[in-house]
Structure formats: C-alpha cells, structure tokens
C-alpha cells in the first residue's frame, strides 16, 4: 500500500507521519484492547465519551496491517460474551415477568449498539469481510443474537407462546400491547437476514396452525346460530379483523396467509352447509327477496374456489323448480291462459334479473346459469311458442289497457328475451303469422308502426327469411286499399250501387298468408254474393290469369237490423215500457258466417239448427260457435233466442229473432266466442304442418351442405345440419338420418363404395 497524501500542500501545519510498515505485536494488542473496551462500553450504552474518529482509525489500522482476522474474531467473542452473559441471562430471568418487554428492549439495544459498532468497523466490513467472504459486522451481530438469545431453548418457546397467547386474547376481545408484538415480529423478520424463515418458523407457522384450530371451533359456534346471513356477517367481520391485525402489528406478509386460513376454515369447509341452510340459506333468501343478504353471500363465496359454483347450483335448482311449476300443466297453476303464462315467466325473469344485478354483480357465470335454466323449462311445455305469440298478439291489439307506448315497448323487448330461449322457433313463426293475419284482417292492430317495430325485432333475431312473408302481408293490405278506390270509381261509372251493399274486399296473396287446408264452404246470401261477383269480374279483368277464392271464415259484415218491439209476457208487471213501443233499429257487426245465418231470418221466423246448417252449408264446429255467440251470450248480445233455453245446441233446437233485444248502443258488435289459443285437435294439425316443413328444411340443409362439400362423413354431416338449423329448431340425429335415407332413395346422395359411412353428392 502506498502512502497517499490527501491533504493540500499549502496547509503546512499538518505533519504527515511516516507510516510504519510493520507493527509489533504489543502495539496490535493495545489497539485491540482499546477497541474491545469501546465495544463493551457501547454495549453498556456508555458510548458518550468515545471518539468515533479514533476508534475508526484504530480499526482501520488493524485491518491495514493485516490483522483483520484478529479483529473479526475478537469482535465475535465480545459480542457473544455480552449477549450470553448479560443479555440472555436477563431475558431468562424475566421469563415470568415482563418477558416481552425485556426481550424487545434487549433487541432494540442490540440493534443500536451493533449499528455503532458497525460504523467504527466499517473499514473491516469493506475490505476484510469482502476479501474473506464472511458475514458483515451487522449480520454477524444478528446471527449471534439469533443463535445465542432468540433460539435459546426456553426463550424461543416462551416467545412463541407469549405471542400466540396475546393474539388469542385479542381475538377474545381483550386489549393487548400491540406495539410489543409488532416489535417482536419485526425482530423475527430482521433476524431472518434476507429471508423470512426465522419469522415463519418461530411465529407464523404456529400462529397459522393455532388460528386454524381457533376458527374451526368458531365455525361450529357460528353455525350453531342457524342463520346463514348471520354467519356470513360474522365471517366477514372476522376476515376484516384478521386482516387488520396482520397489517398492523404482525408482518404484512402474513395478511394473505391468515386470510387464507380464515377462508378455509370458515368458508370452504362449510360452503354447502351455508348455501343449503334451511330457512336461511340461498333458497330462503331468494324466496324472500333478501337481495342484500345474497349480495353478502356472493361476496364471501367469491373468495374461495368453488364457492360461487356451490351458490349458483343452488340458485339454478331453485329457479328450475319455480320455472317448471309455471310451465307444467296442472290444476293449481294457470297454464291455460297464455297471457298469464307468459306474464308469470316474464315476472320470474325480472325477479332473477334483479338478483343478478343487485346481488350477483352481473356475474357472467350466474347470467349463463339463469339463461340455461330458462331455456330448460321454457321448452318443457310444447305450447310455449304458441303462448308467446298470443302474448305478443295481446299487446299489439287495440285497447291494451293501462300501458303507455313505452311500457308496451319494454314488455315486448322482454318478450324477445324469452323468445331467444325457444328451441322451436319455427313453431312460433307459424303461430305469429296466424295471429298477425287475424290482427290485420280484423283490423285489430294498435298501429302499423308497432307491428313493424315488432317485426324488425324478430328480424334481428331470425333474419330476413322470417320477415319477408310478413312484409308481404302488409303490402297486400295497402294494395287492397288502392284496389277498392279503383273499384268505387268503377261502380260509380257503371251507375250501379250494388243493391245497397257497401262492399270492401281485401285481396290476399296466397303465399304470404297462413294457408288453409281448403277454403271452408259457405252459402252467401244473394245480395252480397252478387256484389262480390261484380267485384270479381272487375278484378279479374284487371289481373287476368289470377284466381280469386272467397274466404268466408275471415270476413265481417255490418247489418241493419230492425227489432219490432217486445211482446208483453204473461205475468209481466213492469210498466216501464218505453223501449218496447215501436221498432228499434241497430247496426250489428257480425262475422260473415253470422251474416249468412241472420239473413235467413229475413225469409223465415223460425229455423231449426239442422235447417240453418243445410241452408248455410257452414261446418258444424264453426256453426255452433256462431250460434252460441248470437243466441247464448249476454243479453245485450242476444240477437237470437233458442228453444229450449239450455246451453247445449241440438239439431232439433229452434232459433228465432229476439224481438225484445235492447242495447244502449246503436252500433252493436257481436263478440265471437273465441278460444284463446288452439284446441287440441287444431294443435295437432299445426304440429303436423310444422313437422312437414321441418322435413323440407332438413332436406334443403342436407342438399345445400352436400352440394358445397361434395363428400362428407355421416357424423360430420349430422353435426353440420344441426348447426345450420339450430336457430329454428333442434332436429334429432335420427330424423336427420331418415331424411338422408330419403335423399339417397331419390338419388340426391349416394354412399361411397369404399366406405358406406361417407356420402357423396349426386349431381
């Protein structure tokens, strides 16, 4: 080492002493004694009279002259002696008296003195320690403290026990010296020297173990309260408390482990119990609209694996049960009324949407579960598509009571949500067409706009194929209006008045409107029939090549009716006979069928059922319905009377005009006895038609796919077809197979000779 003068040359007062190259042993020892004393004074907290510079310089000298080892070993001895003889003893003595405080004090003192010792021996740290790869001064001090004091048998165990006891006390509600614990934990962390193993072994592990035991017992206690919501709140409180404790006076790294323990003991192990608790669990909460409790439970179960799944399963099974009850035909539940049926389902959806939003935080998984549940039970009842259409029909008709336009819009949007869950959308389409046709023809729609609005909603869901025909229906209505204008001009020009018949004809294009098997028969009375013939000639002259067929089941008529006063009944005592004097005139709105029936009474006073049937040629089912609405309805609707006066209609019963008919209204509309929804035989027929259509759709899909791909294996083809059709309905693999066979027979497809499981497209 060469001499270096770091002092300026100008300062001549400094005398640079020549550095001795060697040092004799006595000198070295004296330096060491000096240092040793200093260290001991520091340890006794008597560092006041020491000179930092002198000590540093001496240490420096020793190391410089290659006596670092002596210094190092000496240091170790001094520190060890002090800690063993003085410190440890006093700590042991305090075992039953202020133990923690004593230990903490000892630790603090040790740290303070080691810092000072390190400072004076810094040169050794930098040079000797580095070169010889030994622990630096401060760490050496830590290790000696750890080995000689902390891990000394009794002290180690007693410390652990003390700390655990204090935590336990605080858990029970007592106040403890948090600062002392914090200090002790920090000590353990520091003594790990770049690792937390000391803390972990001496404290954390036993702490977690004890905590687990504690919470295990606590969970039993909480469960004993038998209330899920109370349990949850207690657990939440516990979690907060433990987190706060760990953050405040244990080491922060313990926060997560301790919360993990709480979660495991209080939540994981009892998830199912809480969820399924009778009279307070999830089902109880759902039944009683306990939104907040559900939210708390959700938050809690979200913390652990499988928690939400347990909860969602419970929600799902309850929902399925509720939904199933709504759709299953039984005496208690009103499944015969489609409006209530759908409304109940909408209400159920609203309820669960509310839960989803308020309690489950719009959780994706819950959303999926609810959707799949709805899809499940909605499709259990095969009448769902029909009922859904009827519900929409009800909302689009005039006279929807008590709902503003926005409210109707909202309801229809919600109905679309249900629609999405339908598996048999093609059935819905069929019914929707039927109901729309009725609305248009009987002029029952609230407005064209609301109809078109609904159709565009359906278009978004189903595509143009669904709506193109519906739009055709609207077009027919518009064109008919124009045609009637032209017809009116035509008659005026002709100078005819159709014998007083005010005729209105709507011409429907066959392909757009729901098909009838065949147009029902009906003998139209002369006057209207002739008027129609004139129209027919007019129309066919304009559009040659077309065919017009009258649809009597769809039309309506306004009749001028005169009632020739009432005959005094025997024994009648009423003298208020104002209405009975003189003929009364009314306009009656009836269906075409009813018109045919009523006009018979222009010729005859009395007619039997049989005679009416012969004259009008109307089918039995319709005829009975018409006569019921004319003769067996409310008094203000009773145009005809029947003998005998019973409810049943037999072929021999006699009908005649009810001359005693009165009504406050001049214009009387006769309500037709119409069943909401189809009768069972009608449903069967519709189902047959649906099946027929499906056959064609499946075959079309098969041909489409095979034409594009030319060759395909059976299973792959079945999957493709199912995929393509699933927005309309779900075909079963067996049915698809049958269609494939049909196509093979008709030579659209063939099996390949090499592999009978592979089909090819036959051009």
């Amino acid at each position: 080492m060469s001499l270096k003068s770091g002092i300026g040359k100008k300062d001549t007062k400094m005398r640079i002493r020549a550095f001795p190259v060697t040092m004799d042993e006595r000198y070295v020892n004296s330096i060491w004694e000096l240092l040793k004393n200093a260290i001991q004074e520091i340890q006794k907290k008597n560092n006041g009279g020491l000179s930092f510079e002198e000590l540093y310089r001496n240490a420096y000298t020793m190391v410089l002259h290659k006596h670092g080892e002596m210094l190092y070993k000496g240091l170790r001895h001094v520190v060890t002696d002090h800690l063993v003889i003085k410190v440890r003893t006093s700590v042991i003595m305090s075992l039953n008296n202020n133990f923690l405080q004593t230990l903490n004090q000892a630790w603090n003192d040790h740290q303070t003195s080691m810092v000072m010792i390190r400072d004076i021996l810094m040169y050794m740290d930098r040079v000797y320690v580095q070169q010889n790869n030994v622990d630096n001064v401060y760490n050496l001090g830590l290790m000696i403290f750890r080995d000689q004091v902390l891990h000394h048998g009794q002290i180690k165990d007693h410390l652990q026990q003390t700390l655990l006891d204090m935590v336990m006390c605080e858990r029970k509600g007592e106040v403890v010296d948090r600062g002392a614990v914090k200090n002790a934990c920090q000590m353990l962390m520091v003594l790990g020297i770049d690792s937390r193993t000391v803390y972990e072994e001496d404290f954390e592990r036993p702490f977690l173990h004890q905590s687990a035991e504690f919470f295990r017992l606590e969970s039993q206690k909480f469960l004993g309260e038998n209330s899920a919501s109370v349990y949850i709140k207690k657990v939440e409180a516990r979690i907060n408390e433990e987190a706060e404790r760990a953050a405040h006076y244990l080491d922060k790294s313990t926060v997560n482990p301790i919360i993990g323990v709480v979660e495991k003991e209080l939540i994981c192990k009892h998830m199912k119990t809480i969820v399924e608790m009778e009279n307070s669990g999830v089902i109880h909460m759902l039944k009683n609209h306990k939104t907040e409790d559900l939210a708390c439970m959700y938050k809690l179960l979200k913390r652990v694996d499988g928690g939400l799944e347990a909860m969602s399963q419970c929600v799902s099974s309850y929902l399925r049960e509720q939904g199933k009850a709504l759709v299953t035909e039984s005496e208690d539940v009103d499944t015969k009324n489609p409006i209530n049926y759908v409304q109940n389902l909408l209400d159920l959806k609203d309820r669960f949407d509310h839960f989803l939003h308020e309690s489950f935080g719009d959780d994706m998984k819950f959303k999926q579960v609810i959707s799949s549940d709805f899809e499940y039970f909605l499709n259990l009842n095969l009448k769902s598509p029909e009922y859904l259409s009827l519900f929409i029909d009800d909302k689009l008709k005039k006279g929807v009571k008590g709902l503003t336009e926005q409210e109707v819009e909202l309801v229809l949007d919600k109905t679309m949500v249900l629609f999405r869950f339908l598996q048999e959308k093609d059935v819905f389409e069929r019914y929707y067409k039927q109901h729309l046709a009725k609305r248009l023809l009987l002029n029952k729609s609230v407005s064209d706009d609301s109809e078109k609005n609904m159709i565009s909603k359906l278009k978004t869901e189903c595509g143009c194929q669904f709506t193109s025909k519906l739009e055709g229906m609207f077009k027919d209505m518009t064109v008919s209006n124009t045609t009637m204008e032209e017809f009116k001009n035509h008659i005026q020009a002709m100078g005819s008045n159709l014998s007083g018949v005010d005729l209105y004809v709507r011409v429907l294009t066959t392909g757009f409107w729901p098909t009838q098997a065949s147009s029902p028969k009906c003998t139209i009375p002369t006057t209207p029939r002739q008027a129609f013939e004139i129209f027919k000639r007019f129309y066919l002259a304009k559009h040659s090549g077309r065919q017009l067929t009258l649809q009597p089941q769809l039309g309506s008529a306004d009749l001028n009716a005169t009632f020739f006063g009432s005959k005094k009944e025997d024994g009648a005592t009423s003298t208020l006979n104002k209405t009975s004097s003189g003929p009364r005139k009314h306009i009656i709105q009836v269906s075409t069928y009813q018109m045919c029936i009523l006009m018979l009474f222009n010729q005859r006073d009395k007619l039997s059922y049989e005679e009416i049937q012969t004259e009008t040629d109307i089918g039995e089912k319709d005829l009975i319905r018409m006569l019921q609405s004319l003769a067996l309805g409310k008094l203000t609707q009773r145009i005809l009377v029947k003998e005998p006066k019973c409810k049943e209609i037999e072929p021999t019963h006699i009908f005649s005009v009810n001359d005693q008919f009165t009504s406050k209204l001049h214009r009387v509309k006769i309500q037709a006895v119409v069943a909401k929804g189809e009768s069972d035989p009608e449903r069967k027929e519709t189902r047959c038609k649906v099946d027929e259509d499906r056959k064609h759709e499946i075959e079309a899909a098969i041909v489409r796919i095979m034409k594009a791909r030319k060759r395909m294996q059976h299973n792959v083809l079945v999957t493709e077809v199912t995929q393509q059709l699933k927005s309309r309905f779900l075909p079963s693999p067996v049915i698809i197979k049958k269609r494939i066979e049909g196509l093979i027979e008709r030579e659209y497809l063939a099996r390949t000779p090499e592999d009978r499981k592979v089909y090819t497209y036959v051009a």
Partner: protein
Amino acid sequence: MVPFFFIQIVMLVLAWKLDAKQMGFFTLPEWLKGFSEILCDSVEKVQGKLEYLRSILNDPVQFKSIYRYAFDFARDKDQRSMDIDTAKAMLTLLLGRQWVLYSCFHQFLEQSKYRVINKDQWCNILEFSRTILPDLSNYDVDGAWPVILDEFVDWLKTRQQLHIEVAQM
C-alpha cells in the same frame, strides 16, 4: 332331387349370369322353359351346372353382385322400392341360410310398420349381415346404418334383455 329353394336361387343366378344388364328381360315362363330345357338334358349335366352355380354363390364378391341384382329383379317395375312381402321372400332365399340373425330379422320385419324396402336399405342389410356379430357387440351407433337397422338392433336388444331376465327367474 334338388331342394326347392335351390331351384329358385339358381334361376336368379342364371338371370344374373346371362342377363346382368337387361333386367326383366326374362319372363317367368321363359325361365321355366329355359330351366326345363336344362333339365331335359342329362342328369349329370344338370349336376355339373349346379356345382358350378353353387361355387358362384360361395364367392363373396359375386354373391354381393347377385344380391344387389336381386333387388331390381324382384321389385315391381313401376316402384322404386320393393314391397315388404317380396323382400321377406327374397331375403329368406338369399340370406336365410348363412346369416345367423336372419330369423330374428324376419320376425322384426313381420312386426314392424315397414311396407317397403328401398335399395339403400337392401344393400345395407347384406353389409350388416356380413360385418355385425350375432351378439351385436360390434354394432356402432354412429355407423350410418339405415334407421330400419338401428330399430332392428334396438328391438333385438330388448328381446335379448327380456330373455336374460326370464332366464334368471
């Protein structure tokens, strides 16, 4: 004497051999005539011919060809499919002896609602008889078998199950 069925099947083979491309060319009287012409010849020659014909039937490839030909031969010419009674008779003739499950299949057809058999079903019946074991252990549901055969398997399995249950009683 030659067994009766063999006479019938021989006629089929003859038709096939001589006229594979022109179905329906031989009318029944012509056949009988042709056959009796052969019979008229020496008995030894008939024997020899029968041996030869028997050998054709034993060759799987040729048998398959005959089997397929039989469908077009036996069906009513204005229909695409063969009526069920003809099918049963033809199948008895062709498969009755060599297919273990044939008697079951025959009974299945008797109690089923099928009134006709189409060509695809016909051909697959042969495949089925050749590939599927009598205990149905290697029957594959995804095998693209015509529905009639799926139904046969279900029917047979149900019956076998009942027999086991009865046997265990």
